[in-house]
């Protein structure tokens, strides 16, 4: 692959690296796993980059590849611990910035999200990223109606996890 291709790829990834960090944040439980997934996603993005034709936005394409990588690894992984506590340190959340109830609510929410399955996590990620249903459907390769239905189910599921 040519130098200019490498250069443009690394520049784009440097600019949009938060997307990969966000995917890693939802699919991993600790810093080491976060770093591993970040590296794996980077390699997969690089492998897929020559086929990126610019039909969709670079960021949309990145979400798609990153989520696919995370989902594939998540399915392969036997090491994951479903109920492992959310590691607040990892995300550098400063407790003093929240009032106690809000902080507690957020912590429970993150824990609940970690209990969702791989596809549900992808939906939540795109929802948190404030993507509209058209973008969600494009990224996940499902219909808009399907995306809405699935998102509603996820909301219900989160409610059940939070209020058993």
């Amino acid at each position, binding site marked *: 692959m040519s130098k200019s291709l*490498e250069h443009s*790829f*690394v*520049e784009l*990834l*440097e600019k949009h*690296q*938060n997307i990969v*960090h*966000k995917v890693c*944040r939802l699919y991993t439980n600790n810093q080491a796993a976060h770093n591993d997934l970040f*590296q794996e996603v*980077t*390699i997969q993005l*690089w*492998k897929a980059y020559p086929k990126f034709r610019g039909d969709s936005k670079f960021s949309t394409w990145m979400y798609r590849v990153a989520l696919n990588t995370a989902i594939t690894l998540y399915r392969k992984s036997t090491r994951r611990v479903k109920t492992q506590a959310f590691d607040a340190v990892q*995300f*550098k*959340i400063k407790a003093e910035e929240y009032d106690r109830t*809000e902080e507690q*609510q*957020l912590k*429970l*929410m*993150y824990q609940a*999200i970690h209990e969702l399955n791989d596809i549900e996590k992808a939906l939540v990620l795109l*929802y*948190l*990223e*404030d993507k509209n249903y058209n973008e969600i459907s494009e990224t996940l390769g499902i219909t808009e109606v399907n995306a809405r239905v699935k998102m509603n189910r996820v*909301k219900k599921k*989160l*409610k059940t996890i*939070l209020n058993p």
Partner: protein
Amino acid sequence: MDELELLKKDWQKNDGRYPKLSYDEIYRMILKRSSSIVKWIFIISLLEFIFWTVISFFLKDNEGMKRFQELDTDMVMIPLAVIGYGILAYFFYLFFRNYKRISATDSAKVLMENILKTRKTVKQYVAFNLIYLVVSVIVVLCVEFKMDQQLISQVNEAATNGEAFKFYATFILIVAGMLILIIGVLLLFYWLIYGILLKRLNKNYKELKRLEA
């Protein structure tokens, strides 16, 4: 769901809190593809081994091989085979170890060292295969000249006609010619497969060195 909206706000507020990797750090990550090249070197060496095992299995029914097997050559051929397989197994282990080390490291320095090691291992592997081929052919010929009655009678016949030198010279020329041809084909094969992989590995090595400088 209120909690989800609260989470959305928090999520977006965290945008600036993720680690910021530099251009060079990301570039190093894509150079990690070295690990997939080394993985392929390991896989191809195994496939090559399987290929030659299958070929030798089919050659077993060949008349020449049958005649050779009828000779009492176990004392020579078994140690030769054991040494050959032993060294091959050691090379597979080295290839696998290189692959594991390369895929497990994040350090550019270790990556570079392992790329150099892999390159050295591949060169030694190719040299071993070629030397082993030549040694095996010489050993087989010595055995044939000592034990194959058909060949011994041909030698004796040539000697009685005063053509022993001509017989040996022709024999050696034919064997050497065939060996050169086979080595040429093997070298071409190694150059095509391992050469291309090593070239890519080399490119990664140079890039890493440039980044380290």
